[in-house]
Every structure is written in structure tokens, then in C-alpha cells.
């Protein structure tokens, strides 16, 4: 990747907007490193005072509230930019929301345009839920439909919705529930109970008919659930042997997330149940 500083040499690029974009963007650390490398000078002893004195103004109005000389102090003391980043991302006002949105639009262009919503009413409703409340809400809704017995007259489109649901959402839901339960577990016994509960949920789901899935997808999901059960059981044993709750939680979160990420990356091309996909975490790595 070419150095980020080269962007400053392009025609029409202004210093303040360029710096503001990097303050809220993903590459600030690289920019700071490049500035430090090309500057090659010691930091100004009192440079930090500038930020403190101008904090409120910067948070409300951005770098326009700094004089040219003050902006140059930031460039000559790039470590200050890291501090400034925390300020604007944590406490910055609406001005910084605008910078963030603009920066996001530049950086995060999805690889393909988002297609129109499908015409099926049930799905539209679910995707509307997803777009307003997030995938998590949608996943939670799906799980609710799956595991809670419901009268046949209620939510007549639910079955149709589930029939089109990607299998990764099942795993997302499990991961989320596991995370919530483990996050709430402060003591060992609570964490043990949470792990056991999720272990049992995996077993229940694996034994369910899952009619919404094709044969190959069903086999893959069951294989994932079985893998998840094994991991949870292993962490339960580790916890019983005296490990800290946060350690177990961190490991479980990490392992579950890698599984979910695998499915999110490739929700359609599910691996054959008899194969070991390379990108799925193995028992050895646990």
C-alpha cells in the first residue's frame, strides 16, 4: 500500500479535512508512523497543552477551530493525533458524526451494490427488522420462532421466513446468547451453568428436524453445532479446573466468533459434512 502521506500531495487536498478523515478512519496509526518517520524531530515539550486548551472547540467544530500554526503543531507532534482520536471518537459532537459518515462512505464501499429487497412479504418484513434493529434482532427473532412452540395461527409467515433464513443466523444467535449469558456470569458457578445451558441448546438444535435447510446445509449446521458443543464442554472442564471466568469467556467468544465469521463469510458454500474445512477452527487449536 502506498504511504498515506502521498494523499496530501494530491491536487485539491486540504490539510484539515484530510487530517480529520484520518482521525476517525482506520489508518491513523500508519499516518502517525509516517509523519514521525518523515519529521525526524523531537516532540515539542508543550504541544499537549494545545490540545487541552482547545479541546471543547475541537470537539464541537473540528480542526477549523485551530489556527494554521496549531494544525502544524499536530503534524510535528503526530503522537498527539492518537490522543485526539480518542477524544473525537468518544466525545466529539455532531460535527464529527458528519466526518465519520463521510469517512465511512469513502472507506467502506461494499463490493457489490445492495440489491432491492425481495418481493415476498414475509421476508421483506424480516429484512426490515434487520435493517432497523440489526441482524442480532433478526437472529433473535428467528431463534424465537425455532425453539418456542407457537400456535399455528400466530405469525403465519414465520415458517416461510425461516425457510429462507441463512443457516449462519442460527449460529449468530447461539453465539449471541452465549455471549450474553457468559457476560452476565460473574462467578464460576454462573458461568458453568451458562455453558451447560448453551451446550444443551446446541444439542437440542442439532436434534431438531431443521426443515428449512437443504440436506447439505442441515448436515453442515449439525456439524457446526457438534463442534460448538465440544468446545463448550472443553471450556466447562477448564473452568471446573479453576480457570478464571474471563479467560474462559474470552476463549469461548473467540472460538464461537471464528465459527460464526466463517459462516458469515461464506453462508452459501457450506462445507460437506464429511470434510474438514481449512478455515474452520479445529479442536487442536482450542
Amino acid at each position, binding site marked *: 500500500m502506498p*504511504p498515506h*502521506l*502521498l494523499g*496530501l*500531495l*494530491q*491536487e485539491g487536498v*486540504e*490539510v484539515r479535512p484530510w*487530517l480529520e478523515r484520518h482521525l*476517525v478512519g*482506520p489508518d491513523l*496509526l500508519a499516518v*502517525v508512523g509516517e509523519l514521525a*518517520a*518523515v519529521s525526524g524531530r523531537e516532540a515539542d515539550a508543550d504541544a499537549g497543552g494545545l490540545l487541552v486548551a482547545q479541546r471543547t472547540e475541537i470537539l464541537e467544530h473540528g480542526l477549523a477551530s485551530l489556527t*494554521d500554526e496549531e*494544525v*502544524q503543531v*499536530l*503534524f*510535528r507532534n503526530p503522537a498527539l493525533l*492518537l490522543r485526539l482520536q*480518542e477524544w473525537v*471518537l*468518544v466525545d466529539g459532537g455532531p460535527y464529527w*458524526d458528519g466526518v*465519520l459518515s463521510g469517512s*465511512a462512505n469513502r*472507506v*467502506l464501499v*461494499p*463490493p*457489490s451494490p*445492495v*440489491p432491492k*429487497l*425481495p418481493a415476498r412479504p414475509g*421476508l421483506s418484513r424480516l429484512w426490515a427488522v*434487520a435493517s432497523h434493529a*440489526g*441482524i*442480532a*434482532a433478526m437472529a433473535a427473532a428467528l431463534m424465537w420462532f425455532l425453539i418456542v412452540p407457537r400456535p399455528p395461527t400466530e405469525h403465519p409467515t414465520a415458517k416461510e421466513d425461516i425457510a*429462507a433464513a*441463512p443457516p449462519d443466523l442460527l449460529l449468530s444467535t447461539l453465539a449471541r446468547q452465549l455471549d450474553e449469558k457468559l457476560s452476565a456470569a460473574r462467578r464460576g458457578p454462573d458461568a458453568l451453568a451458562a455453558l451447560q445451558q448453551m451446550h444443551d441448546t446446541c444439542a437440542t438444535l442439532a436434534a431438531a428436524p431443521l426443515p428449512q*435447510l437443504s440436506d447439505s*446445509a442441515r448436515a453442515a449446521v449439525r456439524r457446526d453445532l457438534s463442534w460448538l458443543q465440544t468446545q463448550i464442554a472443553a471450556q466447562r472442564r477448564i473452568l471446573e479446573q479453576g480457570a478464571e471466568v*474471563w479467560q474462559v469467556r*474470552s476463549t469461548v*467468544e*473467540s472460538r464461537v*466468533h*471464528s465459527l460464526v*465469521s466463517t459462516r*458469515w463469510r*461464506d*453462508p*452459501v*458454500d457450506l462445507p460437506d459434512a464429511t470434510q474438514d474445512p481449512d478455515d474452520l477452527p479445529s479442536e487442536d487449536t482450542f
Partner: protein
Amino acid sequence: MTGDEAKQVLAEIRPTLLKVAGRIVRANGLSSEDAVQDAYLKALRAIEAGSFPQERGHLLAWFTRVVYSAVYDALRGRARRMARVPAVLDREPADDRPGPLDQLVEWEDEGLIRRSQALLASCIGQLPGEERRAVELRFQGMTNRQIALALDVPLGSVSALFRSVMGKLRRGLAAAGSRADPAG
């Protein structure tokens, strides 16, 4: 900093991290809770894989990068799922082209990063006098007008200088890169 120490720092500043992540996530039109959690887990995974900056003061900026990566994953996943909802389990040609942020979480060897930054400084040092001075002033945050005044040249000349410099720096960096990695 070891992985355990990095995790400990992450845990200590978790409220700040969650605020930062929530803000970036919302700016991208996503629901915050799920994507924030994804980002946090992604950071933990990266630390376990040994892919994180060594300086404590760099962790927040690195985490910001992780958040963007998680957001990108979520947006891409959403686009792909929405495209496939009508026949989600049918096999369709997968778009597996790597996205621009695919490698965002991976933290390169810091020695390599420093070497490439030193290379940039070296290439700048090899520029002819006026061009080098113009670039140095620009990288100190000066506007083109200020640079024109400092160098006593017309404003339009500064843009022309930079066009020339960009080409030289790109060629210099590419040549140095290929010398350092003949196979690549």
C-alpha cells in the same frame, strides 16, 4: 506487550472501546450492539493470533481499525445475504474477491512497518532541493499557499511540484520495494 497484557489493557479500556466502536458502527448505518461485539471479539482473536501493536498507546487506534474491518464484514455479509434471500441455499457463484479491508485486522510485523516508513523518508531525502523542501513543509501541515510563500514561488508552481514529486516517490518506493523483495 504480551497477548495477555494486550487483552488486559483491552479489558481495562473496554468502555471507551465500546463507545468508539458504537460510533463508527452507527455512522455506517448498522445496529451498534452486534457489530460492536463482533469488533471486540475480532480484536481478541487477533491478539490471540499475535497480530496486534506492541505499544499500549497504539491499541485504541488499532482497535479502530478492527472496528472498520468488522463493519466492512457486516456490510458485505448483509449485501450478500440480501442478494441471496430468495434462494439462500441455492449454490450461486460466490464473489470471493478480497475486499479492500480484508486484511485490516492483520498487524504487520512492526519492523517491516518501520522499514517502509524509513524508506519513505529516504525517498523524500533524495528529492531535489526545492521539491524536498516543499514536501517537508506539506508534511508539516502547511497549505499550498503557505508553501508558496515560504519557497517564494507562484502558488501554481506548488501543485506542479507535487505532481512531479508524486511520480518520483511512487517510482522510488516501487523500485526500493522490488529490490527488497525480488520475488514479489
